[in-house]
């Protein structure tokens, strides 16, 4: 599927034809996705979501020694204002003592620039970024406005490249171009593939003597790329690397939090390991096609079932199934012993899960199979062909509400009001709406906590037990806060505003 010759990769809308608005049974969702008939669904009432710019640039900004330039009016990228400290912490956690956190600029386009073009300002920003920060790479994030007025950021990048040492990477992440925020992953990977891995500026390993070269190649045969687009905290990286080490593999983590000059080694690895197809399918497929690096991307290692599936996928590639099964047996036995005293807290408890499709499916599975809870609802930001495998265990379960929505709290509150779960596990910006209904919440991912691997199962279990031990804060919130929805809304079908004519977002 190579798209690397293109300046702008296709959006998810056209490449995968996912669904972003659905409510009903899993069966109809899976079938509908296959026929493509759900991809036109929209809503006649919609609420604020993210855009591909925010996610693209968030991902780019996590890469150390880079500057991100938002080419647009001054508000694009304002989310960075809340995150400057956190980016630095994430870099420090990975042993980067010189971490400076997120460095960003805005070309601050004005009304005059709308008429006369904004390329000059972009040029000035690039040159000044180079002078002030001497970064390894400069990411340019193109926004809605310059895309509409026709600024040519690729041309600016080409024109200035010989004047700056940093690799200039133009990213076409204009918000209006896609309904699927996940397109952002493709955009950033596209930039990395086109500008950091490809071309004369690659920093190939320094010439080695024959013995060293053989040693390097031998090592590369057991070295894998472990992909993290920012949803894995450092503790999760450590856990997955531990498991890979346990079956005799070495792992390097890309692209977030890894300095750009290290990217060249991506091409030498024996295998790329994705923890989420929503993140990485575009990247791993291109790595395979252009550099012959195969990949696995079936599932996310959340919950013992999916950890097993994930680790065996990897092991089978290297012919290490026996080793992996031994590791799994030991790990599961130890984990189950640790989980046993916690399980009482989850007896008869119901849960609602809301996040990206892969994580949502796997987390729901973990809550039922590892903790013995009952899942009453699953919401996925979108649904595409990669969802089927993680939703496998919910097939035929008519008792589980399935909703596809990027945030859209109005649908969520309606569902929560009906299903009254004991706990809600959700993505940032959606938890609070369940909390305001008095439902205890556990963030379903986060940079400082453990979710993946065996450690993740235990950590999520202990955190859930703690949250259920005293729900008073949530109860009080539910009693004292007013939600913005009309009473009549709760009596309506939660999916009343989903329609199938492709008109709305």
């Amino acid at each position: 599927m190579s798209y690397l010759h293109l300046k702008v990769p296709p959006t998810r809308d056209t490449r995968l034809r996912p669904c972003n608005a659905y409510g009903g049974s899993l069966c109809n969702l899976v079938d509908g996705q296959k026929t493509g008939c759900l991809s036109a669904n929209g809503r006649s009432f919609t609420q604020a979501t993210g855009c591909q710019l925010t996610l693209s640039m968030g991902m780019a900004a996590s890469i150390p020694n880079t500057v991100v330039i938002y080419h647009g009016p001054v508000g694009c990228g304002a989310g960075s204002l809340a995150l400057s400290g956190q980016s630095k912490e994430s870099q420090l956690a990975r042993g980067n003592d010189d971490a400076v956190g997120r460095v960003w600029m805005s070309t601050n386009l004005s009304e005059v620039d709308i008429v006369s073009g904004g390329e000059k300002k972009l040029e000035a920003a690039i040159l000044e970024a180079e002078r002030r920060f001497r970064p390894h790479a400069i990411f340019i994030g193109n926004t809605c406005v310059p895309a509409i007025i026709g600024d040519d950021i690729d041309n600016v990048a080409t024109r200035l490249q010989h004047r700056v040492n940093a690799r200039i990477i133009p990213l076409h992440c204009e918000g209006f171009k896609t309904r699927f925020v996940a397109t952002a992953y493709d955009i950033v990977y596209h930039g990395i593939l086109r500008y950091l891995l490809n071309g004369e500026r690659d920093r190939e390993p320094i010439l080695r003597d024959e013995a060293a070269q053989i040693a390097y190649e031998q090592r590369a045969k057991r070295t894998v790329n472990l992909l993290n687009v920012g949803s894995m905290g450092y503790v999760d990286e450590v856990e997955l690397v531990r498991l890979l080490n346990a079956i005799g593999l070495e792992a390097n983590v890309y692209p977030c939090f890894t300095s750009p000059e290290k990217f060249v080694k991506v091409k030498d690895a024996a295998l790329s390991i994705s923890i989420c197809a929503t993140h990485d399918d575009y990247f791993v497929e291109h790595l395979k096609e252009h550099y012959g690096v195969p990949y696995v991307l079936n599932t996310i290692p959340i919950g013992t079932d999916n950890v097993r599936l994930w680790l065996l996928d990897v092991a089978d590639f290297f012919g290490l199934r026996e080793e992996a099964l031994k590791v799994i047996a030991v790990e599961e036995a130890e984990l189950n012993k640790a989980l046993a005293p916690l399980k009482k807290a989850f007896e008869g408890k119901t849960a609602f899960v809301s996040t990206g499709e892969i994580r949502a499916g796997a987390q729901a599975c973990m809550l039922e199979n590892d903790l013995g809870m009952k899942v009453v609802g699953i919401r996925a930001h979108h649904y595409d062909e990669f969802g089927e495998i993680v939703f496998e265990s919910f097939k035929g379960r008519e008792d589980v509400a399935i909703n596809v929505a990027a945030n859209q709290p109005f649908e969520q509150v309606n569902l929560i009001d009906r299903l009254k779960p004991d706990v809600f596990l959700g993505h940032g910006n959606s938890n609070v709406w369940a909390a305001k209904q008095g439902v205890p919440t556990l963030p379903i991912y986060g940079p400082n906590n453990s979710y993946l691997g065996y450690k993740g199962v235990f950590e999520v279990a202990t955190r859930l037990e703690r949250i259920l031990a005293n729900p008073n804060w949530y109860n009080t919130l539910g009693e004292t806060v007013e939600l913005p929805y009309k009473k009549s809304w709760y009596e309506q079908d939660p999916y009343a505003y989903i329609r199938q004519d492709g008109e709305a977002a």
Partner: protein
Amino acid sequence: MGAFIEKPRFTCPLGGALATVGALPRAVAVLHASQGCGGNSIGAIMQGAGHTGSGYCGGASIPTSAIGEQQIVFGGAARLEEQLESTLEVVDAELLVVISGCTAEIIGDDIEAVLRNYRAAGGGRPPLIHASGAGFKGNSYFGYDSVLKSLFRDYVVPNPSKKKGKVNLWGLPPALDVFWEGNLIELRRVLEGIGLTVNTFFTKRDTLVELKNAADAELNIVVSPVNGVAAAEVFKEVHGVDHLVTDLPIGAKATANFVREVAQRLTLDQARVESFLAAEKASYYHFFNRISDSYADLDFQRYLVIVADTTYAVALSRFAQHELGWVTSLVAVTDPTDPEDRPSVLRRFEGGLPDPERTVAFETDTSQVSARLFERWPKPDGSRYYRPFSPAFVIGSRLDKDFADSIGAGHLSVSYPISNRFVLNRGYAGYTGALHLVEDVFSVLVAKR
């Protein structure tokens, strides 16, 4: 206007407008913009502003028309109309404010026509107004003024009769002034202390009814030399109410000046005013002077760097000079100022700084604050008797923490953005606010004890 900016300390008009509408009781913003404009803004408004939270219908709940490629080609007015109708069905609002973003304004959607149709439909619908939030028109300060202007023009009911002793007070943009609500509450308390009736629009006690009936005020008070001034002009033009543009008062001295200025303007009974001020002053210094033992024994005077927008820069300079007795070496003004306006901004610092021309720098770029300091203070030159910039303190935003660390200075986030503190009803204005500021600043100095 303006070149590129490195780490701008504000967002776009849409972000400012969202924060402003979100701070009005039971008002709901409807974005007519690209799908991500809301999501992009809410982090800046919520976590960036002392974790102010999603409020009534903020965060991921903001109704949004989510303009895509199709609307950019064929127009988005119909989509906005549909979104307004469905919003009425789902959301419980007492006032709806359409905030238009870049894409809607570039493609030229006729939003006024949509508004006319909505209003024509009648039938007990909540009032609907429109505020421009296009990013290329300015920054979030502009968004604050944009919403206020629309409110004053299209929501406040004209009333030729004026009520003696009734004032409206604004000038502190929600979120951009992280302490807006605490500040408004304190300034209202002070003005009520001299017998005024005060409408502040954005606090829990305020209601939309009072906002609607704001036209019978005797005077509008704008506690910022820049923010809300354009809206005050509109108020005057539409409702014939004069305004007093003054500075944000922090501390007993500044607040007494503020109160006297207002009292003089409204020709209030001087004896009553002075007796109120005397009581407030006594109570204030009763607490303020508790720092005296540590200040004297531990030498708690500091060289100070202030990094803040115009409103706070002026207010903090005065407070540091006249109340803390600190030595301010640099004031970095971080909101964009037109070069033509700079002399008048500098004049605001007179009386608050011994040498404003030398001390004040107009600097929007975060990493350059350090450079501005070392233009004013010699860099280490290896000499034995180099005079270090110490002991020092930085009152700025969260973005200035690294700079403070780099010069070994204490640091407190007071200006926007503040992601490293929670702010609830805390304010820094007036008497109570100043005492909070003293608590927070001096707590940093003793944090390790």
